[in-house]
C-alpha cells in the first residue's frame, strides 16, 4: 500500500509541476504589450466587424484558414508579432491551411468580390473547394466581409517595419560618426564600392552586375521612399540584411564604425524623380535579347572534341 501511495504522490507532483511550467508560468511571464498593429474593428453604419468576427467563429472559417504569417510565407504580407493578438480571443490562429492565410487579407480584394466569393467561391475562383456560405443572411454577410476587410488593417508596411528596440536604444546613442557630414559620406563611398556596388550598383540604383541573377532585386536607394529612413533603420538593415533575400548581414563583416560611414553615404545618394507610368506607350520597350550561338565545344567542353 505504501508503495502505491508513493506512486500516487509522484504522479500528482509531476503533473502539477508540468501545469505550473506550461500553463501558469506562460500566463505570468508572457504578457505581450499591445503592438498597435493588431486588427482594429471599427463599427460603421453599414458593417460591424466585431460581429463579423463572431460569424467567422460561428461558421468555422478557422478550420481552413490561418491567421498568422510566417517568415517563409511569400506574398502574405508583414509578419505578425506577439502584441498583435492581445485582444484576439478566442484566438483564430488556426492549424490547417486548406485555403490561404488571412492575416493581412483586408483590402486585398474589393468587398463586392469578397461577397461574391462567399456566396459562390467557384464563380470567382474556378476550381476552388471553399464551401459556399450562401446561407448567411445579408447582415451576417456584410459584417463578415467587414471583418475580412479589417484583417491586417493596421499592419501597413509604413507602420510596421521598425528597427528592433536595441538599435534606437543601444547602437544609436553610442554612434561616433556624424552621419550628416560630407566627410563621413566620403569615407562611406569607398566601403560601399567595395562591398555593395556589385549588387546595388555604383549609383545605388539597384542595378549592379550581380542584380541580374538575383530573384529578389537589390534595393534602389534613389527612390523617394528611402529618404524617409531614419539612421537607426539604415543601420539595422545594413547590419542584419534582409531576410529572404541575398542581402548579407554585414554586422559579421564590417565594424560598427564602418557601417555608420555607410549609412552616411547611403543618405547622401541623390533622389530620383519616381516615374509613374499610366499609359502603355510610355513604357520603355526593351529589344529582344539574342543569345549567341554556341559552338559544339563551348556547349559540351568535356566531350574531348578539340
Amino acid at each position, binding site marked *: 500500500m505504501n508503495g*502505491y501511495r508513493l*506512486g500516487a504522490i*509522484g*504522479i500528482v507532483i*509531476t*503533473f502539477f509541476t*508540468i*501545469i505550473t*511550467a*506550461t*500553463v501558469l508560468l*506562460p*500566463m505570468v*511571464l*508572457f*504578457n*505581450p504589450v499591445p503592438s498597435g498593429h493588431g486588427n482594429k474593428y471599427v463599427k460603421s453604419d453599414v458593417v460591424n466587424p466585431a460581429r463579423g468576427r463572431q460569424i467567422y*467563429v*460561428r*461558421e*468555422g*472559417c*478557422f*478550420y*481552413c484558414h*490561418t491567421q*498568422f504569417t*510566417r517568415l*517563409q510565407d*511569400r*506574398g502574405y504580407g508583414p509578419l*505578425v*508579432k*506577439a502584441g*498583435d*493578438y*492581445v*485582444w*484576439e*480571443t*478566442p*484566438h*483564430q*490562429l488556426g*492549424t*490547417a*491551411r*486548406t*485555403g*490561404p492565410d488571412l492575416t493581412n487579407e483586408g483590402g486585398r480584394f474589393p468587398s463586392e468580390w469578397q461577397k461574391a466569393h462567399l456566396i459562390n467561391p*467557384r464563380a470567382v*475562383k474556378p*476550381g*476552388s*473547394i*471553399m*464551401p*459556399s456560405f*450562401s*446561407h448567411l443572411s445579408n447582415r451576417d454577410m456584410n459584417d463578415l466581409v467587414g471583418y475580412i476587410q479589417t484583417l491586417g488593417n493596421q499592419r501597413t508596411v509604413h507602420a510596421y517595419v521598425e528597427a528592433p528596440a536595441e538599435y534606437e536604444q543601444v547602437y544609436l546613442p553610442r554612434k561616433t560618426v556624424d552621419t550628416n557630414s560630407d566627410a563621413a559620406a566620403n569615407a562611406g563611398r569607398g566601403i560601399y564600392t567595395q562591398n555593395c556596388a556589385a549588387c546595388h550598383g555604383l549609383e545605388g540604383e539597384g542595378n549592379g552586375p550581380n542584380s541580374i541573377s538575383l530573384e529578389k532585386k537589390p534595393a534602389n536607394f534613389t527612390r523617394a521612399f528611402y529618404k524617409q529612413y531614419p539612421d537607426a533603420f539604415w543601420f539595422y538593415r545594413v547590419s542584419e540584411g534582409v531576410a529572404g533575400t541575398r542581402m548579407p548581414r554585414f554586422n559579421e563583416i564590417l565594424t560598427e564604425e564602418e557601417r555608420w560611414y555607410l549609412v552616411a553615404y547611403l543618405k547622401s545618394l541623390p533622389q530620383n524623380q519616381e516615374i509613374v507610368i499610366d499609359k502603355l506607350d510610355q513604357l520603355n520597350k526593351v529589344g529582344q535579347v539574342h543569345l549567341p550561338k554556341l559552338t559544339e565545344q563551348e556547349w559540351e567542353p568535356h566531350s574531348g572534341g578539340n
Partner: protein
Amino acid sequence: MLLDAVLSNREGSAARNFILSAIWWSILGMGAGMLGGLEFSMPDLIHNIPQLSFPHLRMWHVNAVAIGWLSMGYVGAMYYMVPSLAKTKLWSERLGNFTMWAWNAVMVGAFCTLINGSTEGREYAELGAVLDVLVAIALVTIAANVYMTVVNRKVKKLYVSLWYFLGALFWFPLVYIIGQRTFVALPGLNDAIVGWFYGHNILGMWFTTVGVGMMYYLLPRLTNAPLYSHGLSMLGFWGIALFYAPTGTHHILQSPVPEWLKAIAVISSVFLLVPVLTVLTNFFMTMKGKWQQVVTDMPLRFAVTSCMFYLVTCTQGPFQATRWVNWYLHFTQWVVGHAHLALLGTFSFILTSAIYYGLPRITGRDWHSQGLIRAHYWLKFLGFLLMMLSLTIAGLIQSAGWAFGVPVDQWGLQIRPYWGLRAVSGVMIVLGQCIFAYNAFKSLYTPAAKAADAKTAEVKA
C-alpha cells in the same frame, strides 16, 4: 421498476450501455466526417443548408468521435476491465448508468449546438459552457466509480493497466477543466497556449493512457502469454507521465509565442520516443511466438494492428515536432493524416478490439457473425490505409506549395485526386462501422434461443 429500468443495477449494464452508446455516436460522428470529406471533392454537393456546411460537420465530427465514440467506448471498456482486474464488482452500477445518461445528454446537446454553429470557437474545445460543466461532472463521477472499485479490490497488486486507467482518470478531468477555458477570456496567444495544452493532452493524458492501458490488458489475455516485462511497462508509464503533458506548444511552433515554451515542447516531444519504444518493445516481445494467432483471432488482429499504427504515429510525432520538419509540414493535410493515424488507426482499433473481446463477456452473447467482423476489419483497415496515403501525399504537395511560394489556387488543383481518394476511404470506414453496429445489434437483440452458441465463447474464454 422505473428506477431499475433507467438506472439499472445489473452487473455489467453500465459497461454495456456505454459501449452501445459509443457505437451509436461513432456512426453519426464518422458519418459526418465522411460527408465533410465528400464536400472537398464536390464542394457544391450540399447547398444552402448551414447544418451540413463543412465547418459545422467538422466540429461535430471531431467532438463526436473524440467525446462520443472514443471516450464513451473507453469508459465502457474501463467499467468492464477495472472490475475484472480488481476481481470485484464495479463500485456502483447505478452511478455508472447515471453517468451514461449524462454523457449521452452531452452528446445530444453537442449535436444540436455544433451542427448549428453554436461554438466557443476553440478547436477541440468547441462545446458550450453548460455542456462543459456536464462533461466535467461526468468525468468526476467516472473517476469516483473507478477509484472506489480499485479501493475495494480483492487482489493486492495493481496491474499496469490499472496504473494507466487511474492515471488517466486523474489527469483527464483536470486537463479538461483547465483546457476548456469556459469562463475565462485570455489574451489571444495565451488562449492558444492553454488551448494546445488541452488539445494535445486530450490525446496524451486520455486517449493514449487509456488506450495503452487497454493494450496491456488485451494482449496477454488474447495470446494467453504473460506480459514480457513489468519493469519496462512501469518505465513506459512514468515516461508518458513526465514527457507527454508539456508538449502542447508544438502545435503552434511557428507563431509568436515564447521561445522557451517551444523549446520545452520540442524537447519533451522528442523524449516521448522513450516511453513509446518501451511500451512497444513490451508488446512485441509479448507477442513473440504468437503471431500466427492473428490469422484466426479477430480481436487480437485489431489489437496488433493498433500497436503497429501506434508505432508509426509515435515515430511521426516527435519527428514532426522538430523545428525544421515542422517548418515544412505544418498547416497541411499531412498533419490531418497524423491525427487520424492516432485516433482512428491506433485508438479506434484498440477500442474495437476491446469491444469485440469484452461485449460477449459482459452480455453472455456471442457475436452474431464472424464474417461480419472480418468485413469490418478489412473495410476499416484498407479504408484507413487509403486515407492515410491520400492525406499524406496531399500534405506533401501542400508543403511544397507553401515552401516554394506556389499560390493556393495552383496546388489546390493538384490535390483534387487525393481529396477524391480520401472521400472513398471515408465511405469504406463508415461502411465498416455500420457493419459493426449491425453485428452488435444482431448479437444482443436476437431472441435468446438463437444465441445458444454463446456458450461456446464462454467456454473458450
